[in-house]
Structure formats: C-alpha cells, structure tokens
C-alpha cells in the first residue's frame, strides 16, 4: 500500500503542502474559490520547527492499530478496509478531544466544518484524489522531495541501496560534490551552531 513518506531533511519550509491541502479539502478545489468560501478549509499537514531549527512537516501516519481510532468513543474515526486509510466521519464527531490526546503525532485539530458546528480535522490521505488516479495534494505540491507517495518497504529498499553505494563509493567523494540541498543543510547547520554557541 502506498503512503505519504516524509523526508524532513529535504523540507525547505515553503508551506506549499499546507496550502494545497487546504485547497484540496475545500468545496471549490481552486485557490481563489477556497479562500472565498464561508467556512474556510483548513490544512491537514503543517510544518513546525524542531528545537534544532530544522523544518518538520507533520501529518497523520495512518497508524495500524491507530490510537485515535481506539480512543474514539462514537466510532467517528474508522479504517477504510481496502486502502487502510484512517478516516473520520465528522457528523459522528462529538469534539471530545480524545483522538487528539491519544495521537502520538499531535496531528488532530478542531475547526468548523458546517455552519455552527466544529469537528475533528485530520488527513484523509486525499482518498478522493487517489480514486481519480492522483497523488495526495501535499505530495504533488512538494517540489523539494520532502513528501513522497510510495510503498514504505520499496522506498526503504531504494534508500538502503543508496546508502550502500554511498558507503562503498566513499563518503569523501560525495562531500566534494554537494547538491543544492546539502549546501542548504550545511548552511542551516552552521546557523544552528552559532545559535548554540550564543545560548
């Protein structure tokens, strides 16, 4: 099963994933339309800064078993059997906050979804887009390679191969030819070093 794989070290903090997530979950599905709707759509993925000032894109992992699902007393949260995606029926939600408290990744938020009524909001892995053959909106929006849509095991195999070649080719050679991202990361690490020294 394909899922959204997060590579926080590639994140440049542009917030495009959040933006396009909100658009994808709006009624109109266009940016101009989405910001004009009476109940504003909200993103289900957010970027935070770690204590080391690194970007950290955070979203639902669709855990199995899912603590939020187990905590949900009204069975608003359920697992779609075919895809394994953890979904939320907002009409059944009673805003008790149990799912938010149970979630180890702190990805649940409460917002109005219809007039005068709030409900829990969380990532639905863009299940509707997937049915149309599209990848989740956050993945499509990410131009930095921080969000991927793939099978976890397959991706890990690929990463292992890369790691192996890196080690066998000699890490030193790699360091001599840094790509754009490694220089950005190096710059950030330098900033962090300065900050640490100051505090």
């Amino acid at each position, binding site marked *: 099963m394909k899922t959204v794989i997060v590579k926080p070290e590639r994140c440049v903090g*542009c*917030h*495009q994933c*959040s*933006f*396009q997530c*909100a*658009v994808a979950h709006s009624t109109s599905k266009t*940016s*101009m339309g*989405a*910001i004009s709707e009476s109940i*504003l*759509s*909200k*993103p289900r993925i957010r970027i935070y800064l770690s204590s080391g000032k690194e970007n950290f894109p955070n979203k639902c992992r669709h855990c199995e078993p899912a603590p939020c699902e187990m905590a949900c007393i009204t069975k608003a949260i359920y697992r779609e059997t075919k895809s394994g995606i953890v979904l939320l029926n907002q009409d059944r939600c009673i805003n008790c906050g149990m799912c938010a408290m149970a979630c180890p990744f702190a990805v649940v938020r409460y917002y109005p979804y219809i007039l005068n009524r709030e409900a829990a909001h969380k990532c639905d892995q863009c299940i509707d887009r997937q049915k149309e053959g599209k990848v989740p*909106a956050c993945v*499509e*929006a990410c131009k930095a390679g921080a969000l991927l849509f793939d099978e976890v095991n397959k991706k890990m195999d690929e990463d292992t191969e890369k790691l192996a070649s890196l080690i066998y080719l000699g890490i030193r050679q790699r360091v001599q030819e840094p790509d754009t991202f490694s220089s950005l990361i190096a710059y950030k690490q330098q900033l962090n070093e300065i900050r640490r020294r100051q505090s």
Partner: protein
Amino acid sequence: MSEFKDLTICKDAQIMLKKAQEDGIETAWDRLKKQQPQCGYCELGVSCRICAMGPCRIDPFGEGPQLGVCGADADIIVARNLARMVAAGSASHSDHGRDIVEVLHKIGLDKTSGYNITDAVKLKSVAGEYGIKTEGISEKEIARQLAEAMMDDYGMKKDMLTFVGRVPKQRIDVWKKARVVPRGIDREVTEMMHRTHMGVDNNYVSILLQAVRSSLADGYGGSMIGTELSDIIFGTPTPGMSEINLGVLKEDQVNILVHGHSPIVSEMIYIAVEDKEMLALAKSKGATGINLAGLCCSGNEMMMRKKIPMAGNHLMTELVIVTGAVEAIIVDYQCIMPSMGQISQCYHTKMYTTSDKAKFNFMEHVEFTPENAREQAFKIVREAIENYARRDKNRVLIPDAPVKSMTGFSVEAIVGALGGTLTPLIDAINAGKIKGAVGVVGCNNPKIKHDYGHVELIKGLIANDILVLTTGCVNVAAGKAGLQVPEAKEMAGPGLKEICGALGIPPSLHVGSCVDNSRIMVIAAALANAIGVDIDQLPLAAAAPEWYSEKAVAIAFYAMASGIYTVLGIMPPIGGSRKVVDLATSGLNDVFGACFAVEPDPVKSCALITAHIAAKRKALGLEV
C-alpha cells in the same frame, strides 16, 4: 496529435509540438505542467520577499500568520507586489524608449553610420509638441534638441510629461485630482520602488495610485516616445500586406529571425539582408535567397514598417527552432525565453544577443551600439549564411502554408484611410455602424489555450460591429486566423462589414508592437477631443486575454487610468486581498471612470465588453 489540440488552436504549433516531443525538446507547456501546482501564496499575491526580516506569507485560510514580520497585512503585501509588477513593466517599455532616444540623439550629433531620419514631417510635428522651433533648422539639429527634450521627460525637471498634453483636459483634471499626473518617467518608477520599500507607503490605495502614475509614465512616456521616435527614425507605418505563421520560413533559403522588441537591431538586420553582396554570398552557398522573418514585437515592428513576414508570437518562439530550418535568431530584449538558447543547441540554429542588458546562455553576444550597428548586422548575417551549410535537411519540417495578413495601421494611416480626419469614424460610431472599438492586446500564456483567447474574443467583437485594434502577440493570433485581411469583413456584423468594405480594411487592424499600444491611446484621446468628451465616455474597451508579462500589467493600468474598461483573461496575483480586488473591479470606477474585470472565457469576456459598450453608447445618447 489530439493532446496538442488542447494546447493550441494553431495547426503549425500542433505539428511542431509533435516534432518537439519526437526530438525530445521540452517547451513552455511541459514546464508549466512540471510546475503544477504553482505556489498558492504567490498566486494570491500574499507572499512578500521585499526585506530580509522575511520572506513572509499570509495564511489565506486563517490558521497561520495574518501579518508579515514588519506588520504588513494581506492588503499591503498584495498592493506592494502588484505595484512592483507595474513598475517593472513601465521600466521595461521606458528603457526600450530610452534606447531609441539615444539613437535619435546620436543621429543629431552625427555619431551614427547606420541610422537616419526617415519621417521628417513627424519629426517636426513632435518637435512642435515639445516647443522646439523647426523653421530653418536642420533635421539633425531638431533631432538633437528633441532627443534632449525627451531626456528631460525621463528626469525630474518637469511637472508633467509632454505627451500628457495629448489627452483631453477633463482627463488631465481627473489625474490631477487623483494626484497621478506622471512627472518624470524614471522618477515614477523609482518612486514606486521607494514607496514599496519596507516602512514607506503602507496604505494600499496610496500604493496603487502611485502604480497608476508609474503606468502613465509608460503609456504617455516611455512607450509613446518609443513609438513616435521609431516612426521618425524608421518610417511611419502605412497599410500593406504581409504573411504570418511558421510557413513563412523557406526551405531553400537562409532563414534569419529577429526576436525581441527594439527596431534598432532588427532594422539594421533588414539592411544587411537586403544587401546584394549578402544575397550573392547566400547563392554561393546553395541557397536561393535570404529570408528575414519576425517573432514577437521585433516582428511586429518589422511587419508594420517593412511588411516583413511574421513567424509567430510568444509561444511559437521555441517551436520555430524545432522546424530545423532556422540559421540564425537575433534577439535584443524582453519576452525571450531563456530556454531558446538551450533548444538551439539541439539544432544548427545560431542565436545572437545584441544588447548589453540582455545576455543568455548558449547565445553569442554581438553587441549593437548606435555607432557599430551596421557592421555588427552584416557580421551576423554573414555568419547566418555560412551556417546554411550546417542545416540537416532530414530534420527540417516547415508546417502549413503562410496566411495573408494586412498590417501597418499607424494612427496616421488610419486617419489617412478615413480621408484625413476622424469624422467618418465618428459618424460611423454615431450611426451605430461601428458600435465601438476595442484594443485586444497582450501576450500568450500557456495557462490559456494558445491563441484561443485572442481569436474567439475578436470573432465575437467584430460580429457585434465592434472594430478591433491589435498589437503584440494578438496580431499573430488574429492574422493566422484570417481576421486581418479585408475579406474578413464577411465575419463582421453588417455595419462594420459595410465600413470595412468601403475602406478596404479588415475589421481587426494591426496597429503595432506592445509599445505601440500608445497608438491606441493617441486614437482614443483624438476621438475624445474631436467629440468634446472625456475618454471614459467613449464606447471603448481593452482586453488582454492571454497576458503573462509585467509590461501587460503596466499597459492594463494606463488603459484603465485613461478611462478604458479593461478585461484580463488571467487573474493577476491579487486574490489574497478582498480590498484590492474590490478596488480593481469596481472602486476604480469612482476615480477614473473605468475599472478592471477578469474573465478567462473569451465568450464571456466578449459579453462583458459588448454590454459595457452598449452602456457607454446609451450614456452618449446613441442607439445601442
């Protein structure tokens, strides 16, 4: 092929897109796809990169920050971004105009070998507007004095640009009241950049009023100077026939293309191409001749004055290389996609940059100055001829046959066609034979099906007896669709058909390049003056169905500020501020008697414009 039919309405483009795919060439359409989805913050105009406390963005969904680090809200950020687009657009046209002022000055000082005064009558009449005495004074001396007077237009000596005097007094009063009378061309652009620096102008209305002033410094400054001086130096265009589309390339000739904007370069290439020695050289290399064709506004300038055929507009500039039949492309500045250099490496095509201001990878720099232009033009043409031997005939594909198109409708030519005065046009408008006139201008943008926006709108307008004036990329779209030949009158409504038939003109008139939008302003002002009303009372409108560039934003602003309702086919990046959207689409009416509308569907924009023209006619007491 079917997938390409969704991208462009042009047969030549569809064939070339297929060849591009086979040749492994990436085009603007492919790159647009890879950029999807494009930055939502930038699309709405709520991202700010102006200072290093930022970059900042406003969350339009209300969860994240609503203020930048400096405290600017969405309204301020959107207004600042839009204003800087206008400043950049104004700067571009005005810097183009400046180069032509420089050439005129060098002519006056006798410091150029290649350039001369072609239209002395216009030189004298424009000099008259600047209060320069012309009687008994040599052309060169008038040229020097006029160039120096125009240099003052660029500076800070004046309270008002000279050409502002061309608009009706009522309009100047409107501008005075709104405090947007342009004083100096460079001054308004510089002040715009100053005002949008952190901590200067932070009222969105005030910011946008200065944007209007910058745009007027373009429309009645840089662009108008560019047009008038180009006419003086290279000749005021007169009507005549030419040809359009990729079919203008010739299989057995050396094909040389000019691309960019300034006639300073392209006119010199023309001289070199016409040279007998060059023709002999081409023949010695096995070619039957040298074929000069244009792209974008360099092409428009050459088409208007010399009836040089036009190979294509903005989105055709990459595809023209894919024909494999082009020996050389000479560029100056503006709208030249940097991808062209890369693509030229896949064929034998040589590309040349000519301006110190515009350098590109994979192009050879041959700098043109007023002093050396002639020699440099000959050097490039000679190299292009030598390059003919490198053409791989197996890779050549020239699609389609060229389409005839009429061109050359300068203000002088239009007045000439009417018999020397605007009265016949006013009579036709009064009688309802011509309901009104619309400038359909602007670029191509792969977000809109190539040329579809232009062609559908023009067809709709002329069918409603509305006369169309085209500039820039629209000329190519309209020409290719067969709308710019006298026979196109058959597609016009009965009134417009009768007028076009009587005068032998098309219902859609090519008035020039994008700086030549100033010609449309001159006609609008002259019409208003002749009738004795302000421009905003006339049954006029403007449209930019496929715009992409900052210059187009500046043009839209000066058209609107002149009192002309302007419909854009692409939403400018202002959606993130309700206040700016409201101001642009209605609030401006109270100040300038005109505003903007955004409508990507040409059928609907045609309906908007016809309704607007009907309302203006009604207000003038004319039959709708």
